[in-house]
């Protein structure tokens, strides 16, 4: 085989009209780039040409960007989790140190000690992302888009956490200690179980869906007290201040933690607020009648554009997506989508 670099062969190859013998040559150059510096040089010329070209009307590569973004978010979460665990342990260590010092001081027969200052841990899942969390008692769960969970760095007798938004809990059963989720409308008292709680401030309701075990719902002012069994969904209507219970398929309500967006015969009006949070977008419905259209669909890892496209395929809906604008302060706004009835 020749040991020379031939730019014509490379050209033929890049254009896709080449023989196996051509390929064997190119393969050699790629394999031993040190011996053939001409290859890199020629490729850099090609690259420069490509970057100068107009790239209109080619297939969109946006799905690759979505993948990259997803990868970046994943890396970031795991890194930040590690970082914060370290911080958390440091904090625990610092807290543990105080009683030790106190004891030593006491031994010396001296002063009283300052009260222990316990820290609160707060986890936030921004819109468009989901976060897995682990609590100090080895309970775990998932936090859905735009939600916040607050819990003491060290649990006391009762384990009490505060939730704003939606979360799925897998609570470790401890005989001595109750686990309580505090949402704006009521407390959920748990005895080792799996369940989903959704209490977004801009929704009209707060709901609890029980997958396994037993939970108790206690109204804030002692107004109601209800014990749930698995497969039930309790919905508290904030306007009417009443609690309703229905039978459901519980897994469907926690499918979001595995990355599924499940829509089951729900009116568009309800679906949209979930899609908005899921994709961190704003959706404007231009025809009120649209809100009563019902859907059934399950999406996994689909970009917003694809979800909208599929909805538009099955219903007489037209939509357009606005370019992301800057508001008067120069902050980038959310993606905005407009929906209206197709007139035919």
């Amino acid at each position, binding site marked *: 085989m020749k040991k020379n670099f031939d730019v014509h062969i490379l050209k033929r190859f890049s254009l896709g009209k080449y023989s196996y013998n051509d390929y064997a040559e190119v393969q050699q150059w790629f394999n031993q780039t040190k011996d053939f510096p001409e290859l890199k040089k020629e490729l850099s010329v090609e690259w420069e040409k490509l970057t100068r070209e107009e790239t209109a009307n080619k297939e969109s*590569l946006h799905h690759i960007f979505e993948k990259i973004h997803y990868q970046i978010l994943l890396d970031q979460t795991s890194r930040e*989790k590690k970082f914060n665990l370290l911080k958390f342990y440091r904090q625990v260590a610092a807290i543990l140190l105080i009683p030790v010092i106190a004891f030593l001081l006491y031994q010396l027969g001296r002063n009283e000690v300052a009260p222990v200052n316990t820290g609160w841990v707060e986890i936030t899942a921004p819109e468009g992302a989901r976060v897995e969390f682990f609590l100090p008692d080895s309970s775990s769960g998932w936090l859905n888009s735009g939600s916040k969970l607050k819990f003491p760095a060290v649990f006391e007798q009762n384990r009490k956490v505060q939730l704003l938004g939606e979360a799925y809990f897998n609570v470790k059963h401890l005989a001595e200690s109750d686990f309580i989720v505090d949402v704006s409308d009521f407390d959920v008292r748990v005895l080792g179980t799996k369940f989903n709680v959704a209490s977004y401030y801009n929704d009209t309701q707060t709901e609890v869906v029980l997958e396994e075990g037993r939970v108790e719902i206690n109204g804030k002012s002692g107004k109601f007290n209800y014990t749930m069994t698995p497969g039930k969904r309790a919905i508290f209507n904030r306007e009417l201040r009443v609690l309703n219970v229905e039978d459901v398929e519980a897994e469907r309500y926690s499918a979001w933690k595995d990355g599924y967006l499940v829509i089951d015969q729900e009116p568009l009006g309800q679906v949209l607020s979930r899609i908005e949070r899921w994709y961190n977008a704003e959706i404007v419905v231009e025809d009120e009648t649209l809100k009563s259209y019902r859907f059934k669909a399950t999406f996994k890892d689909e970009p917003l554009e694809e979800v909208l496209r599929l909805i538009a395929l099955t219903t007489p809906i037209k939509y357009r997506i606005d370019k992301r604008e800057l508001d008067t302060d120069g902050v980038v706004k959310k993606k905005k989508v407009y929906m209206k009835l197709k007139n035919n």
Partner: protein
Amino acid sequence: MRIVLFLERNSFHFCSSVLNLQIFVPDINLFTHLRIVRTNTEAELIAGIKRNNHDSFQKIFEKYSQPLYSFALSYLKSKEAAEDVVQEVFIKIWTNRKTLKTNTSFQSYIFTIAFNAVRKYFNKLAKVNTVKHDILQSFSGNIENFNNDSNFQLLLDKLDELIEQMPEKRKQVFVKKKIEEKSLKEIAEELSITPKTVEYHITEAMKFLKNEFEQLNVKGLIFFYLFIRN
């Protein structure tokens, strides 16, 4: 000139899609300050990426992803591999964002990463292509002519297309045996079938391919000196 303002509070960035997970310790003063970032020239976009700005990152992606994809595709001849290169290059840019330089050519910076990625995938694909070459050559009457014919890419594509057309089980067996070069025994175990059945599938698959290529040859869709033998 467009102005983007972004807020920074502690290490908490209010970028739309940045994920935050953080611990608040009481008694720490949260301080807030404002920064003005102009996003227009490439150097400014790079500076934005260095400050974790996802929008700058997206703008850089929009600018370079298409040429990068075409570049990778012309040397790798595989859409999947070209997409992988695009993904790999941009993840690398993001991971190394703190060390990006705003004063040197970003275009040649991308080239360095892209060249290495393309080279890596090229060498990976070379193994498979050699194996495919051997399969194709086995159908050919005149090996020298075959190796000199400028339709090699066309034949590779046709081979992939025909493999896709095989029944599921046969396809699996064929790919494992001929492309991944596994032994009869290994394949038999993996698919829990007898080695005899594996052999049968291979024979049938080769017969099918040979037949299809012969027909293409007769129709003049492929060059003439294939299959002169037999």
